[in-house]
Protein backbone atom coordinates (compact mmCIF):
# COMPACT_ATOMS: atom_id res chain seq x y z
CA UNK A 1 0.00 0.00 0.00
CA UNK A 2 1.23 3.13 -0.25
CA UNK A 3 -0.20 6.35 -0.49
CA UNK A 4 -0.91 7.25 -3.93
CA UNK A 5 1.95 9.07 -5.16
CA UNK A 6 1.34 12.53 -4.21
CA UNK A 7 3.16 14.29 -6.84
CA UNK A 8 4.44 17.57 -5.82
CA UNK A 9 1.95 20.09 -6.76
CA UNK A 10 3.02 20.77 -10.22
CA UNK A 11 3.82 24.29 -11.01
CA UNK A 12 1.70 25.26 -13.90
CA UNK A 13 4.03 25.59 -16.77
CA UNK A 14 2.80 29.03 -17.51
CA UNK A 15 3.72 30.26 -14.06
CA UNK A 16 7.22 28.90 -14.17
CA UNK A 17 7.69 30.63 -17.44
CA UNK A 18 6.51 33.84 -15.88
CA UNK A 19 8.97 33.45 -13.05
CA UNK A 20 11.76 32.87 -15.45
CA UNK A 21 10.71 35.88 -17.43
CA UNK A 22 10.63 37.93 -14.26
CA UNK A 23 14.08 36.72 -13.33
CA UNK A 24 15.30 37.52 -16.74
CA UNK A 25 13.76 40.94 -16.47
CA UNK A 26 15.44 41.59 -13.13
CA UNK A 27 18.71 40.42 -14.54
CA UNK A 28 18.14 42.51 -17.62
CA UNK A 29 17.27 45.48 -15.48
CA UNK A 30 20.42 44.89 -13.51
CA UNK A 31 22.53 44.69 -16.58
CA UNK A 32 20.65 47.66 -18.03
CA UNK A 33 21.42 49.64 -14.88
CA UNK A 34 25.05 48.59 -15.08
CA UNK A 35 25.20 49.51 -18.74
CA UNK A 36 23.59 52.85 -18.01
CA UNK A 37 26.02 53.53 -15.19
CA UNK A 38 28.94 52.73 -17.45
CA UNK A 39 27.59 54.85 -20.31
CA UNK A 40 26.55 57.68 -18.04
CA UNK A 41 29.98 57.84 -16.45
CA UNK A 42 31.66 57.63 -19.85
CA UNK A 43 29.68 60.54 -21.24
CA UNK A 44 30.12 62.68 -18.16
CA UNK A 45 33.76 61.62 -17.64
CA UNK A 46 35.20 64.96 -18.85
CA UNK A 47 33.07 66.73 -16.28
CA UNK A 48 34.09 64.27 -13.56
CA UNK A 49 37.76 64.80 -14.31
CA UNK A 50 37.35 68.57 -14.34
CA UNK A 51 35.28 68.44 -11.17
CA UNK A 52 37.95 66.53 -9.31
CA UNK A 53 41.08 68.19 -10.73
CA UNK A 54 39.92 71.76 -11.34
CA UNK A 55 37.18 72.23 -8.71
CA UNK A 56 37.06 69.80 -5.80
CA UNK A 57 40.79 69.48 -5.18
CA UNK A 58 41.45 73.23 -5.58
CA UNK A 59 38.51 74.06 -3.31
CA UNK A 60 39.93 71.85 -0.55
CA UNK A 61 43.43 73.14 -1.22
CA UNK A 62 42.21 76.73 -0.90
CA UNK A 63 40.84 75.91 2.54
CA UNK A 64 44.15 74.28 3.41
CA UNK A 65 46.26 77.17 2.11
CA UNK A 66 44.15 79.56 4.16
CA UNK A 67 45.70 78.08 7.31
CA UNK A 68 49.22 78.40 5.97
CA UNK A 69 51.88 80.82 4.93
CA UNK A 70 52.45 80.11 1.26
CA UNK A 71 53.79 82.00 -1.74
CA UNK A 72 52.64 79.46 -4.31
CA UNK A 73 56.13 78.12 -4.91
CA UNK A 74 57.87 77.07 -1.69
CA UNK A 75 56.47 73.69 -0.73
CA UNK A 76 55.24 72.70 1.72
CA UNK A 77 53.09 75.62 2.86
CA UNK A 78 53.90 76.53 6.45
CA UNK A 79 51.01 75.92 8.87
CA UNK A 80 50.06 79.08 10.75
CA UNK A 81 46.65 78.14 12.09
CA UNK A 82 44.12 80.94 12.20
CA UNK A 83 46.63 83.74 11.69
CA UNK A 84 45.39 84.65 8.23
CA UNK A 85 41.83 84.91 9.44
CA UNK A 86 42.90 87.01 12.41
CA UNK A 87 44.82 89.30 10.06
CA UNK A 88 41.74 89.71 7.93
CA UNK A 89 39.81 91.23 10.81
CA UNK A 90 42.42 93.93 11.30
CA UNK A 91 43.14 94.61 7.64
CA UNK A 92 41.67 98.02 6.74
CA UNK A 93 41.70 97.07 3.04
CA UNK A 94 39.46 94.09 3.72
CA UNK A 95 36.96 96.40 5.37
CA UNK A 96 37.20 98.83 2.48
CA UNK A 97 36.97 96.14 -0.19
CA UNK A 98 34.07 94.46 1.58
CA UNK A 99 32.15 97.69 2.02
CA UNK A 100 32.77 98.71 -1.60
CA UNK A 101 31.52 95.31 -2.73
CA UNK A 102 28.47 95.39 -0.48
CA UNK A 103 27.70 98.87 -1.79
CA UNK A 104 28.03 97.55 -5.31
CA UNK A 105 25.84 94.48 -4.74
CA UNK A 106 23.01 96.31 -2.97
CA UNK A 107 22.86 99.06 -5.59
CA UNK A 108 23.70 97.34 -8.86
CA UNK A 109 21.49 94.27 -8.40
CA UNK A 110 18.19 96.07 -7.62
CA UNK A 111 19.01 98.74 -10.19
CA UNK A 112 19.61 96.12 -12.88
CA UNK A 113 16.38 94.32 -12.06
CA UNK A 114 14.25 97.47 -11.94
CA UNK A 115 15.74 99.11 -15.03
CA UNK A 116 15.78 95.81 -16.89
CA UNK A 117 12.11 95.23 -16.14
CA UNK A 118 11.09 98.80 -16.94
CA UNK A 119 12.88 98.68 -20.28
CA UNK A 120 11.33 95.29 -21.03
CA UNK A 121 7.86 96.69 -20.26
CA UNK A 122 8.43 99.67 -22.53
CA UNK A 123 9.90 97.49 -25.29
CA UNK A 124 7.07 94.97 -24.98
CA UNK A 125 4.69 97.14 -26.97
CA UNK A 126 3.61 95.85 -30.30
CA UNK A 127 4.15 98.86 -32.48
CA UNK A 128 6.08 99.30 -35.73
CA UNK A 129 9.91 99.27 -35.61
CA UNK A 130 9.93 98.24 -31.94
CA UNK A 131 12.43 95.55 -32.95
CA UNK A 132 14.95 98.22 -33.87
CA UNK A 133 14.62 99.78 -30.42
CA UNK A 134 15.06 96.39 -28.75
CA UNK A 135 18.27 95.91 -30.73
CA UNK A 136 19.50 99.35 -29.76
CA UNK A 137 19.03 98.60 -26.07
CA UNK A 138 20.62 95.16 -26.42
CA UNK A 139 23.63 95.95 -28.58
CA UNK A 140 25.78 97.70 -25.92
CA UNK A 141 25.92 94.45 -23.97
CA UNK A 142 27.91 93.04 -26.88
CA UNK A 143 30.68 95.57 -26.34
CA UNK A 144 33.44 93.77 -24.39
CA UNK A 145 33.61 94.71 -20.69
CA UNK A 146 37.09 96.11 -21.26
CA UNK A 147 35.92 98.23 -24.17
CA UNK A 148 32.87 99.50 -22.30
CA UNK A 149 35.01 100.61 -19.37
CA UNK A 150 37.47 102.45 -21.60
CA UNK A 151 34.67 104.15 -23.56
CA UNK A 152 33.01 105.34 -20.35
CA UNK A 153 36.26 106.52 -18.81
CA UNK A 154 36.74 108.54 -21.99
CA UNK A 155 33.19 109.89 -22.31
CA UNK A 156 33.07 110.88 -18.65
CA UNK A 157 36.58 112.24 -18.45
CA UNK A 158 36.51 115.68 -16.83
CA UNK A 159 39.13 117.06 -19.20
CA UNK A 160 37.12 117.59 -22.35
CA UNK A 161 34.80 114.59 -22.29
CA UNK A 162 31.48 114.99 -24.12
CA UNK A 163 29.33 114.52 -21.00
CA UNK A 164 30.93 117.35 -19.12
CA UNK A 165 30.93 119.45 -22.29
CA UNK A 166 27.16 119.02 -22.42
CA UNK A 167 26.84 119.84 -18.73
CA UNK A 168 28.93 122.96 -19.28
CA UNK A 169 26.76 123.94 -22.22
CA UNK A 170 23.75 123.47 -19.99
CA UNK A 171 25.23 126.04 -17.66
CA UNK A 172 26.65 123.83 -14.94
CA UNK A 173 29.65 125.65 -13.55
CA UNK A 174 31.17 122.95 -11.38
CA UNK A 175 31.23 119.74 -13.33
CA UNK A 176 31.57 116.36 -11.69
CA UNK A 177 34.85 114.51 -11.86
CA UNK A 178 33.09 111.15 -12.31
CA UNK A 179 35.60 108.30 -12.13
CA UNK A 180 38.23 110.59 -10.68
CA UNK A 181 36.04 111.49 -7.72
CA UNK A 182 36.04 108.88 -4.98
CA UNK A 183 32.39 109.66 -4.19
CA UNK A 184 31.21 109.40 -7.77
CA UNK A 185 33.28 106.57 -9.20
CA UNK A 186 30.96 103.77 -8.09
CA UNK A 187 27.75 105.55 -9.17
CA UNK A 188 29.44 106.23 -12.52
CA UNK A 189 30.30 102.55 -12.74
CA UNK A 190 26.58 101.83 -12.29
CA UNK A 191 25.99 103.67 -15.55
CA UNK A 192 28.09 101.07 -17.38
CA UNK A 193 26.00 98.33 -15.80
CA UNK A 194 22.80 100.01 -16.96
CA UNK A 195 24.26 100.53 -20.41
CA UNK A 196 24.98 96.80 -20.65
CA UNK A 197 21.61 95.68 -19.29
CA UNK A 198 20.74 93.78 -22.49
CA UNK A 199 20.64 90.16 -21.25
CA UNK A 200 18.60 91.04 -18.15
CA UNK A 201 16.14 93.02 -20.27
CA UNK A 202 15.79 90.25 -22.86
CA UNK A 203 15.02 87.63 -20.22
CA UNK A 204 12.29 89.87 -18.78
CA UNK A 205 10.98 90.61 -22.26
CA UNK A 206 10.68 86.91 -23.07
CA UNK A 207 8.88 86.29 -19.78
CA UNK A 208 6.46 89.16 -20.42
CA UNK A 209 5.64 87.80 -23.84
CA UNK A 210 4.78 84.44 -22.35
CA UNK A 211 2.12 85.77 -20.00
CA UNK A 212 -1.16 84.39 -21.38
CA UNK A 213 -3.37 87.15 -22.70
CA UNK A 214 -6.57 85.68 -21.29
CA UNK A 215 -5.31 86.30 -17.76
CA UNK A 216 -5.22 90.01 -18.50
CA UNK A 217 -8.72 89.80 -19.89
CA UNK A 218 -9.89 88.01 -16.78
CA UNK A 219 -8.29 90.72 -14.67
CA UNK A 220 -9.99 93.36 -16.78
CA UNK A 221 -13.36 91.69 -16.25
CA UNK A 222 -12.72 91.94 -12.51
CA UNK A 223 -12.33 95.65 -13.02
CA UNK A 224 -8.54 95.64 -12.77
CA UNK A 225 -6.72 98.57 -14.32
CA UNK A 226 -3.10 98.74 -15.40
CA UNK A 227 -1.59 98.54 -11.93
CA UNK A 228 -3.61 95.54 -10.68
CA UNK A 229 -2.88 93.85 -14.01
CA UNK A 230 0.81 94.37 -13.37
CA UNK A 231 0.87 93.34 -9.71
CA UNK A 232 -1.64 90.49 -9.87
CA UNK A 233 -0.93 89.00 -13.28
CA UNK A 234 2.39 90.12 -14.70
CA UNK A 235 4.60 90.05 -11.62
CA UNK A 236 3.57 86.61 -10.30
CA UNK A 237 3.95 85.09 -13.75
CA UNK A 238 7.40 86.46 -14.39
CA UNK A 239 8.83 85.44 -11.01
CA UNK A 240 10.98 82.72 -12.66
CA UNK A 241 12.62 85.42 -14.77
CA UNK A 242 13.02 87.64 -11.71
CA UNK A 243 14.70 84.77 -9.88
CA UNK A 244 16.97 83.92 -12.79
CA UNK A 245 18.03 87.55 -13.24
CA UNK A 246 18.50 87.96 -9.50
CA UNK A 247 20.86 84.99 -9.29
CA UNK A 248 22.83 86.01 -12.38
CA UNK A 249 23.14 89.65 -11.37
CA UNK A 250 24.20 88.68 -7.86
CA UNK A 251 26.96 86.49 -9.24
CA UNK A 252 28.07 89.25 -11.60
CA UNK A 253 27.94 91.86 -8.86
CA UNK A 254 30.00 89.85 -6.39
CA UNK A 255 32.63 89.07 -8.99
CA UNK A 256 32.99 92.58 -10.37
CA UNK A 257 36.57 92.86 -11.54
CA UNK A 258 37.24 93.67 -15.18
CA UNK A 259 35.33 96.95 -15.29
CA UNK A 260 36.98 98.19 -12.10
CA UNK A 261 40.46 97.27 -13.34
CA UNK A 262 39.95 99.02 -16.68
CA UNK A 263 38.32 102.09 -15.18
CA UNK A 264 41.15 102.44 -12.68
CA UNK A 265 43.75 102.10 -15.40
CA UNK A 266 42.15 104.23 -18.09
CA UNK A 267 40.34 107.00 -16.23
CA UNK A 268 43.55 108.24 -14.71
CA UNK A 269 45.53 107.99 -17.92
CA UNK A 270 42.93 109.65 -20.17
CA UNK A 271 42.78 112.82 -18.16
CA UNK A 272 46.50 113.09 -17.76
CA UNK A 273 45.66 116.17 -15.72
CA UNK A 274 45.31 113.87 -12.76
CA UNK A 275 48.86 112.69 -13.30
CA UNK A 276 49.83 109.51 -11.58
CA UNK A 277 47.53 107.69 -9.25
CA UNK A 278 46.51 105.00 -11.70
CA UNK A 279 46.36 102.82 -8.64
CA UNK A 280 44.69 99.50 -9.05
CA UNK A 281 41.69 100.37 -6.86
CA UNK A 282 40.67 103.56 -8.63
CA UNK A 283 40.49 106.99 -7.06
CA UNK A 284 41.32 106.71 -3.34
CA UNK A 285 40.59 103.00 -3.55
CA UNK A 286 36.92 103.73 -4.19
CA UNK A 287 36.94 100.95 -6.78
CA UNK A 288 38.87 98.51 -4.63
CA UNK A 289 36.31 95.75 -4.80
CA UNK A 290 36.81 92.44 -3.07
CA UNK A 291 37.89 90.74 -6.28
CA UNK A 292 40.32 93.52 -7.07
CA UNK A 293 41.90 93.26 -3.63
CA UNK A 294 42.05 89.48 -3.91
CA UNK A 295 43.85 89.84 -7.22
CA UNK A 296 46.38 92.15 -5.59
CA UNK A 297 46.99 89.83 -2.65
CA UNK A 298 47.18 86.66 -4.74
CA UNK A 299 48.87 87.70 -7.94
CA UNK A 300 50.81 90.82 -7.14
CA UNK A 301 51.95 90.00 -3.60
CA UNK A 302 51.77 86.24 -4.15
CA UNK A 303 50.47 85.83 -0.64
CA UNK A 304 48.54 82.63 -1.30
CA UNK A 305 47.89 81.91 2.37
CA UNK A 306 46.21 85.21 3.12
CA UNK A 307 44.57 85.34 -0.30
CA UNK A 308 43.08 81.91 0.28
CA UNK A 309 41.61 83.03 3.59
CA UNK A 310 40.03 85.98 1.77
CA UNK A 311 38.71 83.61 -0.90
CA UNK A 312 37.24 81.25 1.68
CA UNK A 313 35.41 84.14 3.34
CA UNK A 314 33.97 85.27 0.01
CA UNK A 315 32.94 81.74 -0.90
CA UNK A 316 31.15 81.24 2.40
CA UNK A 317 29.22 84.49 1.98
CA UNK A 318 28.25 83.77 -1.63
CA UNK A 319 27.28 80.19 -0.76
CA UNK A 320 25.12 81.32 2.16
CA UNK A 321 23.33 83.92 0.05
CA UNK A 322 22.78 81.47 -2.79
CA UNK A 323 21.41 78.77 -0.52
CA UNK A 324 19.08 81.26 1.16
CA UNK A 325 17.96 82.49 -2.25
CA UNK A 326 17.24 79.03 -3.63
CA UNK A 327 15.37 78.14 -0.43
CA UNK A 328 13.27 81.27 -0.56
CA UNK A 329 12.53 80.63 -4.24
CA UNK A 330 10.14 77.85 -3.23
CA UNK A 331 7.95 80.46 -1.57
CA UNK A 332 7.85 83.19 -4.17
CA UNK A 333 8.83 81.77 -7.54
CA UNK A 334 5.85 80.52 -9.46
CA UNK A 335 6.67 77.84 -12.03
CA UNK A 336 3.74 77.44 -14.34
CA UNK A 337 4.31 73.77 -15.21
Amino acid at each position, binding site marked *: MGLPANPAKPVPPGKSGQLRAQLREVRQKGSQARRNLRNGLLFTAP*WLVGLLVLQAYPLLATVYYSFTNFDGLQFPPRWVGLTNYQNMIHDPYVKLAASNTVWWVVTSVPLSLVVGLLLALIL*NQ*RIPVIGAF*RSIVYVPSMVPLAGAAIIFAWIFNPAGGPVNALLAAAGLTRQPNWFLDANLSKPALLLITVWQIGPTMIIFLAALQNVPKDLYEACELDGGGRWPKFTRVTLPLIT*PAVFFNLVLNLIWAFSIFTQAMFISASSASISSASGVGAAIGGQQNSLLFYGVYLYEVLFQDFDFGYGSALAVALTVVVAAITVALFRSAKRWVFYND
Partner: protein
Amino acid sequence: MIEDSTPELSRQSVIVEDDSGTEQGKKNELAGAPYRGGPASHRWLIYLALIGIAIPFLFPIYWLTTGAFKTPSTIVDVPPAWWPVHWVLTNFRVIFNSGAVDIPRYAWNTLLMCLAWVVAGTAVSALIAYGFARIEFLGRQVLFSTVIIVLILPYWATIAPQYVLFHSLGWLNSLAPVTAPALTGVPFSIFLLREFMRGIPLEVSEAARLDGANEMQIFLFVILPQLTPVLIVTALFQFADTYNSFFLPLVYLTSPANYTLSLGIYQFIQLHGAPDTGAMVAYTLLLSVPLLFVFVVAQKRLTSGVKISGRLG
Protein backbone atom coordinates in the same frame (compact mmCIF):
# COMPACT_ATOMS: atom_id res chain seq x y z
CA MET B 1 15.99 93.58 -35.09
CA ILE B 2 14.77 91.70 -32.08
CA GLU B 3 11.35 90.47 -33.00
CA ASP B 4 8.50 89.44 -30.77
CA SER B 5 8.88 86.32 -28.72
CA THR B 6 10.65 83.73 -30.76
CA PRO B 7 8.85 80.46 -30.23
CA GLU B 8 9.54 79.52 -26.67
CA LEU B 9 12.29 76.97 -26.53
CA SER B 10 11.21 75.01 -23.58
CA ARG B 11 11.58 71.44 -22.57
CA GLN B 12 8.43 70.71 -24.48
CA SER B 13 9.61 72.08 -27.78
CA VAL B 14 13.13 72.01 -29.07
CA ILE B 15 12.39 73.68 -32.33
CA VAL B 16 14.22 76.87 -32.97
CA GLU B 17 12.67 78.62 -35.88
CA ASP B 18 14.94 80.66 -38.05
CA ASP B 19 12.48 82.97 -39.63
CA SER B 20 9.35 84.57 -38.40
CA GLY B 21 6.76 82.72 -40.38
CA THR B 22 3.03 82.96 -40.06
CA GLU B 23 3.25 80.35 -37.33
CA GLN B 24 5.05 82.80 -35.12
CA GLY B 25 2.66 85.56 -35.94
CA LYS B 26 -0.18 83.41 -34.66
CA LYS B 27 1.73 82.59 -31.56
CA ASN B 28 2.29 86.23 -30.88
CA GLU B 29 -1.43 86.83 -30.99
CA LEU B 30 -1.76 84.32 -28.18
CA ALA B 31 1.21 85.39 -26.16
CA GLY B 32 0.32 88.98 -26.94
CA ALA B 33 1.84 91.90 -25.20
CA PRO B 34 -0.43 93.57 -22.66
CA TYR B 35 0.81 97.06 -23.13
CA ARG B 36 -0.15 97.93 -26.64
CA GLY B 37 0.59 101.18 -28.29
CA GLY B 38 -2.73 102.63 -27.26
CA PRO B 39 -4.61 105.07 -29.44
CA ALA B 40 -2.66 106.27 -32.41
CA SER B 41 -2.73 109.83 -31.11
CA HIS B 42 -0.51 108.77 -28.23
CA ARG B 43 1.89 106.85 -30.42
CA TRP B 44 4.18 109.76 -31.02
CA LEU B 45 4.66 110.14 -27.27
CA ILE B 46 5.78 106.54 -27.04
CA TYR B 47 8.18 106.97 -29.93
CA LEU B 48 9.52 110.10 -28.33
CA ALA B 49 10.20 108.14 -25.12
CA LEU B 50 11.81 105.32 -27.12
CA ILE B 51 14.08 107.75 -28.93
CA GLY B 52 14.94 109.32 -25.60
CA ILE B 53 16.00 105.89 -24.37
CA ALA B 54 17.83 105.00 -27.57
CA ILE B 55 20.13 108.02 -27.59
CA PRO B 56 22.13 107.25 -24.43
CA PHE B 57 22.34 103.60 -25.45
CA LEU B 58 23.73 104.48 -28.86
CA PHE B 59 25.87 107.47 -28.01
CA PRO B 60 28.91 105.60 -26.59
CA ILE B 61 29.07 103.43 -29.71
CA TYR B 62 28.77 106.50 -31.90
CA TRP B 63 31.48 108.25 -29.92
CA LEU B 64 33.82 105.28 -30.16
CA THR B 65 33.30 104.74 -33.86
CA THR B 66 33.74 108.35 -34.87
CA GLY B 67 36.46 108.97 -32.31
CA ALA B 68 38.74 106.30 -33.70
CA PHE B 69 38.84 108.17 -37.02
CA LYS B 70 39.50 111.63 -35.61
CA THR B 71 42.96 113.09 -35.84
CA PRO B 72 44.97 112.63 -32.64
CA SER B 73 44.70 116.35 -31.98
CA THR B 74 40.93 116.57 -32.59
CA ILE B 75 40.35 113.69 -30.21
CA VAL B 76 41.56 115.65 -27.21
CA ASP B 77 39.89 118.91 -28.24
CA VAL B 78 38.18 120.89 -25.52
CA PRO B 79 35.27 121.28 -26.08
CA PRO B 80 35.07 117.98 -27.95
CA ALA B 81 34.50 117.75 -31.68
CA TRP B 82 31.13 116.10 -32.16
CA TRP B 83 31.98 114.93 -35.65
CA PRO B 84 35.40 114.16 -37.16
CA VAL B 85 36.34 117.10 -39.34
CA HIS B 86 38.80 114.92 -41.21
CA TRP B 87 38.42 111.17 -41.22
CA VAL B 88 41.89 109.72 -40.80
CA LEU B 89 43.48 106.34 -40.11
CA THR B 90 46.33 107.82 -38.10
CA ASN B 91 45.23 106.20 -34.84
CA PHE B 92 45.15 102.75 -36.43
CA ARG B 93 48.56 103.30 -37.99
CA VAL B 94 49.94 104.27 -34.60
CA ILE B 95 48.56 101.18 -32.94
CA PHE B 96 49.86 98.83 -35.64
CA ASN B 97 53.25 100.46 -35.99
CA SER B 98 54.05 101.06 -32.34
CA GLY B 99 56.31 98.50 -30.81
CA ALA B 100 54.23 98.60 -27.62
CA VAL B 101 51.50 96.29 -28.84
CA ASP B 102 51.37 93.47 -31.34
CA ILE B 103 47.73 93.38 -32.42
CA PRO B 104 48.00 90.56 -34.99
CA ARG B 105 49.69 88.38 -32.40
CA TYR B 106 47.09 89.20 -29.71
CA ALA B 107 44.30 88.59 -32.21
CA TRP B 108 45.78 85.20 -33.08
CA ASN B 109 46.04 84.24 -29.39
CA THR B 110 42.48 85.41 -28.80
CA LEU B 111 41.34 83.36 -31.77
CA LEU B 112 43.07 80.24 -30.44
CA MET B 113 41.55 80.71 -27.01
CA CYS B 114 38.08 81.28 -28.47
CA LEU B 115 38.40 78.27 -30.76
CA ALA B 116 39.32 76.04 -27.84
CA TRP B 117 36.26 77.07 -25.85
CA VAL B 118 33.81 77.43 -28.71
CA VAL B 119 34.69 74.21 -30.55
CA ALA B 120 36.14 71.87 -27.91
CA GLY B 121 34.23 73.39 -25.00
CA THR B 122 30.87 73.16 -26.72
CA ALA B 123 31.51 69.68 -28.12
CA VAL B 124 32.56 68.28 -24.75
CA SER B 125 29.68 70.07 -23.03
CA ALA B 126 27.28 68.41 -25.46
CA LEU B 127 28.70 64.98 -24.61
CA ILE B 128 28.36 65.67 -20.90
CA ALA B 129 24.88 67.11 -21.32
CA TYR B 130 23.85 63.95 -23.16
CA GLY B 131 24.99 61.84 -20.24
CA PHE B 132 22.96 63.94 -17.82
CA ALA B 133 19.88 64.29 -20.00
CA ARG B 134 19.44 60.94 -21.71
CA ILE B 135 21.08 58.24 -19.59
CA GLU B 136 19.51 57.30 -16.32
CA PHE B 137 22.43 56.27 -14.17
CA LEU B 138 23.08 55.98 -10.48
CA GLY B 139 24.17 59.29 -8.99
CA ARG B 140 23.13 61.32 -11.99
CA GLN B 141 21.20 63.90 -9.97
CA VAL B 142 24.00 64.41 -7.49
CA LEU B 143 26.58 64.74 -10.23
CA PHE B 144 24.42 67.20 -12.13
CA SER B 145 23.95 69.33 -9.04
CA THR B 146 27.72 69.82 -9.04
CA VAL B 147 27.34 71.53 -12.43
CA ILE B 148 25.04 74.13 -10.87
CA ILE B 149 27.33 74.49 -7.86
CA VAL B 150 30.38 75.11 -10.06
CA LEU B 151 28.31 77.55 -12.13
CA ILE B 152 27.69 79.63 -9.03
CA LEU B 153 31.01 79.06 -7.23
CA PRO B 154 33.18 82.20 -7.39
CA TYR B 155 36.35 81.48 -9.35
CA TRP B 156 38.29 82.88 -6.41
CA ALA B 157 37.49 79.71 -4.50
CA THR B 158 39.74 77.65 -6.76
CA ILE B 159 42.14 80.02 -8.48
CA ALA B 160 45.17 79.76 -6.15
CA PRO B 161 45.54 75.96 -6.24
CA GLN B 162 44.77 75.95 -9.96
CA TYR B 163 47.60 78.40 -10.43
CA VAL B 164 49.93 76.19 -8.40
CA LEU B 165 48.80 73.17 -10.43
CA PHE B 166 49.34 74.83 -13.82
CA HIS B 167 52.63 76.21 -12.63
CA SER B 168 53.87 72.77 -11.62
CA LEU B 169 52.75 71.41 -15.00
CA GLY B 170 54.94 74.04 -16.63
CA TRP B 171 51.91 75.57 -18.33
CA LEU B 172 52.48 79.17 -17.35
CA ASN B 173 53.80 81.16 -20.24
CA SER B 174 51.73 79.19 -22.67
CA LEU B 175 48.11 79.39 -23.69
CA ALA B 176 47.43 76.01 -22.04
CA PRO B 177 45.93 77.36 -18.77
CA VAL B 178 43.33 79.37 -20.70
CA THR B 179 42.54 76.67 -23.26
CA ALA B 180 42.99 73.18 -21.80
CA PRO B 181 40.22 73.47 -19.15
CA ALA B 182 37.74 73.73 -22.05
CA LEU B 183 38.15 69.96 -22.39
CA THR B 184 36.28 69.43 -19.12
CA GLY B 185 33.12 71.17 -20.32
CA VAL B 186 31.47 74.46 -19.46
CA PRO B 187 28.80 74.48 -16.72
CA PHE B 188 26.48 76.97 -18.42
CA SER B 189 26.66 75.17 -21.76
CA ILE B 190 26.05 71.82 -20.09
CA PHE B 191 23.04 73.28 -18.30
CA LEU B 192 21.61 74.78 -21.49
CA LEU B 193 22.18 71.75 -23.72
CA ARG B 194 20.81 69.37 -21.10
CA GLU B 195 17.56 71.35 -20.93
CA PHE B 196 17.12 70.87 -24.66
CA MET B 197 18.10 67.24 -24.78
CA ARG B 198 15.53 66.53 -22.09
CA GLY B 199 12.91 67.99 -24.41
CA ILE B 200 13.44 65.35 -27.08
CA PRO B 201 11.00 62.46 -26.53
CA LEU B 202 12.65 59.33 -25.12
CA GLU B 203 10.92 57.21 -27.77
CA VAL B 204 13.29 58.67 -30.35
CA SER B 205 16.24 57.08 -28.57
CA GLU B 206 14.29 53.90 -27.88
CA ALA B 207 13.59 53.42 -31.57
CA ALA B 208 17.25 53.88 -32.45
CA ARG B 209 18.23 51.45 -29.68
CA LEU B 210 15.92 48.79 -31.11
CA ASP B 211 17.68 49.28 -34.41
CA GLY B 212 20.89 48.35 -32.63
CA ALA B 213 22.39 51.78 -32.14
CA ASN B 214 24.66 52.32 -29.13
CA GLU B 215 24.60 55.46 -26.98
CA MET B 216 27.36 57.16 -28.95
CA GLN B 217 25.55 56.56 -32.21
CA ILE B 218 22.29 57.83 -30.72
CA PHE B 219 24.10 60.93 -29.49
CA LEU B 220 25.83 61.62 -32.79
CA PHE B 221 23.17 60.67 -35.30
CA VAL B 222 19.86 61.07 -33.49
CA ILE B 223 20.17 63.78 -30.84
CA LEU B 224 22.86 66.11 -32.17
CA PRO B 225 21.21 66.76 -35.56
CA GLN B 226 18.10 67.95 -33.75
CA LEU B 227 20.15 70.30 -31.64
CA THR B 228 22.04 72.22 -34.32
CA PRO B 229 20.29 75.56 -33.64
CA VAL B 230 20.81 75.21 -29.89
CA LEU B 231 24.44 74.24 -30.40
CA ILE B 232 24.94 77.39 -32.45
CA VAL B 233 23.39 79.51 -29.68
CA THR B 234 25.58 77.81 -27.08
CA ALA B 235 28.66 78.33 -29.22
CA LEU B 236 27.80 82.01 -29.69
CA PHE B 237 27.42 82.49 -25.93
CA GLN B 238 30.68 80.72 -25.43
CA PHE B 239 32.38 82.95 -27.96
CA ALA B 240 31.11 86.13 -26.29
CA ASP B 241 32.10 84.82 -22.88
CA THR B 242 35.58 83.72 -23.90
CA TYR B 243 36.24 86.83 -25.92
CA ASN B 244 35.30 88.89 -22.87
CA SER B 245 37.43 86.94 -20.43
CA PHE B 246 40.10 89.08 -18.86
CA PHE B 247 40.79 87.72 -15.40
CA LEU B 248 42.23 84.35 -16.39
CA PRO B 249 44.46 85.76 -19.16
CA LEU B 250 45.64 88.42 -16.70
CA VAL B 251 46.61 85.77 -14.18
CA TYR B 252 48.11 83.18 -16.49
CA LEU B 253 49.49 84.90 -19.57
CA THR B 254 52.62 86.53 -18.31
CA SER B 255 54.58 86.80 -21.53
CA PRO B 256 53.51 89.44 -24.09
CA ALA B 257 53.81 86.78 -26.78
CA ASN B 258 50.75 85.12 -25.26
CA TYR B 259 48.61 88.19 -24.63
CA THR B 260 45.01 88.25 -25.78
CA LEU B 261 43.39 91.42 -27.13
CA SER B 262 41.78 92.40 -23.79
CA LEU B 263 44.96 91.77 -21.86
CA GLY B 264 47.00 93.59 -24.48
CA ILE B 265 45.05 96.80 -24.19
CA TYR B 266 45.15 96.62 -20.39
CA GLN B 267 48.92 96.29 -20.35
CA PHE B 268 49.18 99.02 -22.96
CA ILE B 269 47.24 101.42 -20.73
CA GLN B 270 48.95 100.26 -17.53
CA LEU B 271 52.53 100.33 -18.71
CA HIS B 272 52.55 103.34 -20.95
CA GLY B 273 51.23 105.81 -18.44
CA ALA B 274 49.08 108.36 -20.19
CA PRO B 275 49.09 106.88 -23.66
CA ASP B 276 48.07 108.39 -26.92
CA THR B 277 44.28 108.57 -26.44
CA GLY B 278 43.75 108.15 -30.17
CA ALA B 279 45.62 104.86 -30.23
CA MET B 280 43.71 103.64 -27.20
CA VAL B 281 40.38 104.49 -28.82
CA ALA B 282 41.38 102.82 -32.09
CA TYR B 283 42.39 99.70 -30.16
CA THR B 284 39.07 99.77 -28.27
CA LEU B 285 37.17 99.91 -31.55
CA LEU B 286 39.18 96.98 -32.94
CA LEU B 287 38.51 95.08 -29.72
CA SER B 288 34.76 95.72 -29.91
CA VAL B 289 34.18 95.00 -33.59
CA PRO B 290 34.26 91.17 -33.56
CA LEU B 291 31.51 90.83 -30.93
CA LEU B 292 29.40 93.57 -32.51
CA PHE B 293 29.82 91.83 -35.84
CA VAL B 294 28.64 88.56 -34.31
CA PHE B 295 25.64 90.38 -32.90
CA VAL B 296 24.65 91.85 -36.24
CA VAL B 297 25.00 88.50 -37.99
CA ALA B 298 23.40 86.33 -35.36
CA GLN B 299 21.30 88.59 -33.17
CA LYS B 300 18.13 86.62 -33.68
CA ARG B 301 19.70 83.39 -32.48
CA LEU B 302 21.53 85.14 -29.67
CA THR B 303 18.49 86.85 -28.23
CA SER B 304 16.38 83.72 -28.50
CA GLY B 305 19.18 81.92 -26.70
CA VAL B 306 19.20 84.42 -23.85
CA LYS B 307 15.46 83.98 -23.55
CA ILE B 308 15.47 80.23 -23.23
CA SER B 309 18.13 80.17 -20.60
CA GLY B 310 15.80 81.94 -18.19
CA ARG B 311 15.18 79.16 -15.78
CA LEU B 312 17.22 77.89 -12.88
CA GLY B 313 16.73 75.27 -10.23
